[in-house]
């Protein structure tokens, strides 16, 4: 698969916000059109789909594993696997939800590989705060003042530290619901669990995070 070493050494920090290409401004319904063309082998349409969804998939994976270079590789893996599975994709779910499902599997496979390679117990240590690259700060929006940028940067570090203290399942459900904005039903599809489980995990994850971030949260 793609190795980080293949990436140019001087990598810019990822930019935040919607992607710049015109294709990204299309409505979600346009996904179906591009998917149909991609299923017929049209790489250009698939490239458009990649462009439209790479920002969300990369953000989701990066927030899950807190490793920029690995997230870059894993996000690519998601789109390659999606291409391979595209003939089996049916328009029962949104294309984006389907991609999140593949991303879920890719991240958990990666976690299992890490567990196997390190021959250790699977726990949150791999997501520990001290493994978060402090240099991987996302470029702030152009309109953000330096003071706001610093405040957001500090808040981000604190939120990431809090997220690192909860289980991957709780982290994922919070990210899917509160950051990515998926519906309960979609989260259940992505995580392969019941809606009741999603509701329960979300309730406890939010409680735990709000406790961990009490000072920050109350100040806002």
């Amino acid at each position, binding site marked *: *698969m*793609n190795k980080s070493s*293949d*990436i*140019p050494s001087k*990598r*810019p*920090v*990822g*930019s*935040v*916000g*919607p*992607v710049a290409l015109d294709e990204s401004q299309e409505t979600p319904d346009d996904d179906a059109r591009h998917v149909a063309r991609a299923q017929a082998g049209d*790489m250009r349409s*698939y*490239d458009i789909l*990649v*462009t439209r969804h*790479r*920002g*969300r998939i*990369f*953000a989701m994976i*990066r*927030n899950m594993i807190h490793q*920029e270079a690995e*997230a*870059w590789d894993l*996000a*690519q893996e998601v*789109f*390659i696997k999606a*291409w*391979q599975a595209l003939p089996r994709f049916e328009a029962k779910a949104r294309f984006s939800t389907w991609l999140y499902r593949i991303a879920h599997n890719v991240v958990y496979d990666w976690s299992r590989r890490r567990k196997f390679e390190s021959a250790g117990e699977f726990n949150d240590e791999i997501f520990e705060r001290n493994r978060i690259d402090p240099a991987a700060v*996302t470029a702030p929006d152009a309109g953000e003042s330096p003071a706001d940028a610093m405040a*957001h940067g500090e*808040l*981000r570090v*604190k*939120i*990431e530290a809090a997220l690192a203290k909860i289980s991957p399942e709780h982290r994922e459900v*919070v*990210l899917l*619901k*509160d*950051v*990515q*904005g998926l*519906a*309960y039903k979609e989260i259940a599809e992505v995580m392969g669990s019941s*809606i009741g489980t999603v*509701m329960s995990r*979300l309730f406890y994850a*939010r409680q735990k995070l*709000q406790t961990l*971030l009490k000072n*920050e*949260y109350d100040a*806002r």
Partner: protein
Amino acid sequence: MNTMPDDLSLSRWLDDELQGAELATFEASIHDKAELLARRQNLRNWRATLTSALPAVVEPPYPEFFNHRIEKSILELTSKPVTTRQRGGAWRTWWMPATAMAGMALAFWAGTRAGGVTQRVTQTHPTPPAMIAQAPSVYTPERGVDAEWFSSPDAAATVIVLEGVDAIPDTLDLSETVGLRSSRGSTADLDNPSITETL
């Protein structure tokens, strides 16, 4: 008549998932609206806090290269020959090991026969490995810079032309771009004492 909302509907309302008729029906069924409105506002604040620090969309570094690598991987995958499992039948299970054993025995016999023969070894010039015709993967990280490549098998050369790169001024001393100070340990160092002395 039970007018209490179910947990899922309540959760969906608190998370602003309900719309249209569903929303109207739900809001008509709730009594203690003030308490629920406070809870919903609390969740909205929570989401605003999270999304202000963790954006839902983050472009991956080098997005064009990101797409290019995906396309390249897909093309590599699709160009691989499809391996299909052949139906061999039960005879394969004993025939293949037997053939392998016979081959080994034949090789051993040939080796013993060739042992006494004087062999004349002729030294030939090593031939370079055949060049594999492969399209180069060209990527330009700078916006506005386009790259084209041309290949000439006759000249055994590939030329990459960059359009949109700023002109290199004549005053630029290219030797300054080379690491001269570390005279050891780098194969990129210039091996020219006259130059290094002037530094």
